[in-house]
């Protein structure tokens, strides 16, 4: 019995010691991890809203949830350049998350796929960058398009799907269109003309 | 897949090898003269060997008893020629071993023992006396299995026989000895059968013949009618191994002999037609088994025929009377090509279980180009015992005998159907025999 108590004591001490060490490490690493997360999001937001100032992209909440972001040209949040939102759609083998940026008229100006675990070599081609090019060819198609144009060719739309990966292509396309329509509803309609942004 | 709709009476599995019976089926039985010398093994049956009661130098007459039965499951052997005992020593036996044998040099007289004579009072014999006579006449199943007949005719009281089957199926290719016997000695066969029925008193008696011998069916039906025998003569569709006891019972009665059991467990008893005739001889004529009908055939024999030969005549002697061997003779078998045993010498004697001497030519012999099993399942379809021969083969090959036992290796009747159809030429029967041996060795060691 004494033995058991001794062992429990040793084990307890070791565990508490370990937890303490980890607490310390966590204390140091946590800000860094959050910083990394923030950076990643910022980078994505910037590729969605290329003309916005990195310091002037503000989230818009609905309850606890961020429903979209507003991007401004100036650090003092003036000169609205557009909105960004996260679109989610069920792909072939994963949920595909895309961050999409639109200008004030509802025209897509940038996008970045945040998460996808599609079939390597097929579905993942939605992120494929062709040899000698800079951006993914599939995503490039969306730039300049509006909600009504967004459907894959097989469904009668203008987006050329990735060969052999219609489901992934369709998931991205449809989720973006749905997100756009939702955004439009929230905003009560896009404006007819684009804001002039002074560079 | 078997089309079962039309098969009236049958058993599962089986094969249809070419029959090749036309070589001898129309040739009447030819009686061969007694040879100058016979070699009579003291054991020609399943059970304990007999003990010799003669000595070298003794003179014997045809029908003289040479041995004392070695026990209840044992029968004596008798002199098949008259002459002098030259030697009592191990000699090659057609089953492939050396067996103590009594060698008799003939005197050319062919003198018969005075005891061999018709018994006018045979009808008064009790069942016990009949069995005794059958045993002392040296009767052992003439179909090939050579199990002592008197034992078979003594079922224990708790297992009454309600169906008696006379086996004239003769499903082995080439063999026609039983066929000719039925055609030429139908009355004697029926008489022998009547004697056995008298002992057993079954409800039902059947004479089973494959339908490639319709003439025999007719003759036997007639003979049975004349004898006033209350029995059916049934023509069965040709299929190997129809003549195997368990398969025959299944085909005729639909009953399955349980695993490890005997026909009497389902109230049946099967006797070969040759045995029936020998029963008649033993009981009515008091004549022991000194000769038998043998089919000498195959493409390696010059003049295939059915012959009545004395027990103990050498294969060489018999073959000489059939015109000798042809060029290209490749295998000499005792029995048919499916279950027969290949002989390495022609000096072996004809024994009580020798239904045929088949000499195959090179072209007929199964080539054994062993290939890998492609799991085609033909052996499974062919096995009349419902086994998976290929599975057992692989288990035996890898010495996994416990599993082989689970897969039923002991149930194998060694009919050869599996190996006959195997496209890979695997020695399936060989593996079965080896597996059975090992498994029973282990079982004995365990008990």
């Amino acid at each position, binding site marked *: 019995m004494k033995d058991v108590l001794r062992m429990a004591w040793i084990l307890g001490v*070791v565990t508490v010691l370990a937890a303490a060490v980890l607490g310390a*490490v966590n204390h140091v690493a946590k800000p860094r991890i959050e910083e*990394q997360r923030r950076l990643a999001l910022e980078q994505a937001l910037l590729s969605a809203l290329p003309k916005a100032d990195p310091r002037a992209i503000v989230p818009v909440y609905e309850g606890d949830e961020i429903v979209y972001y507003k991007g401004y040209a100036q650090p003092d949040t003036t000169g609205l350049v557009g909105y960004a939102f996260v679109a989610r759609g069920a792909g072939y083998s994963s949920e595909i998350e895309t961050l999409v940026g639109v200008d004030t008229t509802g025209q897509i100006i940038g996008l970045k796929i945040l998460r996808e675990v599609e079939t390597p070599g097929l579905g993942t081609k939605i992120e494929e960058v062709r040899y000698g090019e800079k951006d993914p060819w599939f995503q490039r198609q969306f730039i300049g398009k509006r909600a009504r144009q967004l459907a894959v060719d097989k469904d009668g739309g203008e987006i050329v799907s990735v060969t052999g990966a219609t489901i992934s292509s369709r998931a991205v396309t449809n989720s973006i269109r749905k997100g756009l329509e939702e955004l439009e509803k929230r905003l009560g309609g896009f404006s007819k003309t684009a804001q002039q942004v002074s560079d | 897949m078997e089309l079962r709709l039309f098969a009236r009476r049958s058993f599962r599995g089986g094969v249809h090898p070419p029959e090749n019976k036309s070589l001898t089926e129309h040739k009447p039985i030819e009686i061969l003269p007694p040879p100058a010398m016979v070699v009579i093994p003291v054991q020609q049956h399943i059970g304990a060997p007999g003990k010799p009661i003669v000595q070298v130098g003794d003179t014997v007459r045809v029908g003289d008893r040479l041995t004392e039965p070695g026990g209840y499951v044992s029968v004596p052997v008798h002199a098949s020629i008259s002459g002098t005992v030259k030697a009592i020593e191990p000699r090659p036996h057609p089953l492939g071993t050396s067996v103590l044998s009594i060698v008799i040099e003939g005197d050319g007289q062919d003198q018969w023992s005075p005891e061999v004579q018709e018994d006018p009072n045979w009808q008064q014999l009790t069942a016990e006396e009949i069995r005794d006579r059958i045993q002392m006449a040296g009767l052992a199943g003439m179909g090939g299995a050579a199990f002592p007949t008197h034992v078979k005719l003594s079922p224990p009281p708790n297992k009454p026989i309600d169906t008696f089957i006379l086996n004239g199926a003769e499903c082995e290719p080439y063999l026609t000895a039983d066929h000719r016997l039925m055609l030429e000695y139908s009355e004697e066969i029926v008489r022998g059968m009547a004697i056995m029925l008298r002992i057993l008193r079954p409800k039902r008696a059947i004479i089973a013949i494959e339908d490639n011998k319709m003439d025999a069916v007719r003759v036997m039906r007639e003979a049975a009618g004349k004898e006033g025998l209350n029995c059916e003569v049934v023509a069965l569709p040709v299929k190997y191994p129809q003549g195997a006891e368990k398969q025959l019972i299944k085909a005729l009665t639909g009953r399955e002999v349980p695993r490890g059991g005997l026909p009497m467990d389902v109230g049946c008893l099967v006797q070969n037609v040759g045995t029936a005739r020998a029963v008649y001889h033993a009981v009515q004529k008091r004549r022991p088994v000194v000769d038998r009908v043998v089919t000498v055939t195959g493409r390696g024999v010059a003049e295939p025929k059915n012959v009545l030969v004395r027990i103990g005549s050498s294969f060489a002697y018999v073959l000489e009377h059939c015109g000798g061997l042809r060029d290209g003779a490749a295998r000499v078998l005792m029995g048919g090509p499916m279950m027969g045993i290949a002989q390495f010498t022609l000096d072996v004697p004809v024994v009580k279980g020798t239904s045929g001497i088949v000499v195959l030519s090179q072209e007929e012999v199964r080539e054994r180009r062993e290939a890998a099993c492609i799991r085609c399942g033909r052996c499974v379809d062919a096995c009349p015992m419902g086994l998976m021969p290929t599975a057992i083969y692989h288990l035996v090959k890898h010495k996994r005998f416990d599993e082989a036992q689970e897969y039923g290796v002991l149930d194998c009747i060694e009919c050869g159907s599996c190996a006959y159809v195997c496209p890979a030429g695997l020695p399936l029967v060989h593996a079965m025999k080896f597996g059975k041996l090992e498994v029973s060795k282990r079982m004995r060691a365990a008990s």
Partner: protein
Amino acid sequence: MSVGKEFTKGLYAENPVFKQALGLCPTLAVSNSVRNAVGMGLAMTFVLVLSNIIVSLIRRFVPRKIRIPIYIVVIATFVTIVDLVMAGFAPDLHKALGIFVPLIVVNCIILGRAEAFAGRNSVFRSLLDGLGMGFGFSLALFVLAFIREILGDGRLYGFPLLGPGFEPMLIMILPPGAFLTIGLLMGLMNWLDKRRCS
């Protein structure tokens, strides 16, 4: 055994992956690219060396009966440190390796070395053993990833290697490719070993 051997045995003769078939899950899971493989190898080596050292240090004070739970706690601590540090400083790699970073805890190589070696040997030898095993593991991972990335993606460490004309054999970066590659590699090694012996 010489000190040098203590280190080199892990590389080939007692390679934890190829020779002992240990630590298979991360080996197969993250060997679809060399980048992941290197990251995983480093993380493993870090945990192996440090846990070996600590286990060797405390081996005299630990009651036999509870040594395994204590080893596990020690290992889990280092694994969590790696996890946190990687999340903070190499987020992409952290994302790519996924749950296989925390799963280093149950990697049989580490517990196996702690139990079989560090618990019985000096600190220095344990350190060398940890390094050797860690490098051996990394080497195995690297070899697998090298083959799989080149064939399956036409690239090496993310750089196009076989040119645009090469059509990558996708199956190599899918799960079946991992199984087939390691199976063939192990067979090849058995064959080479046997040839060398005879």
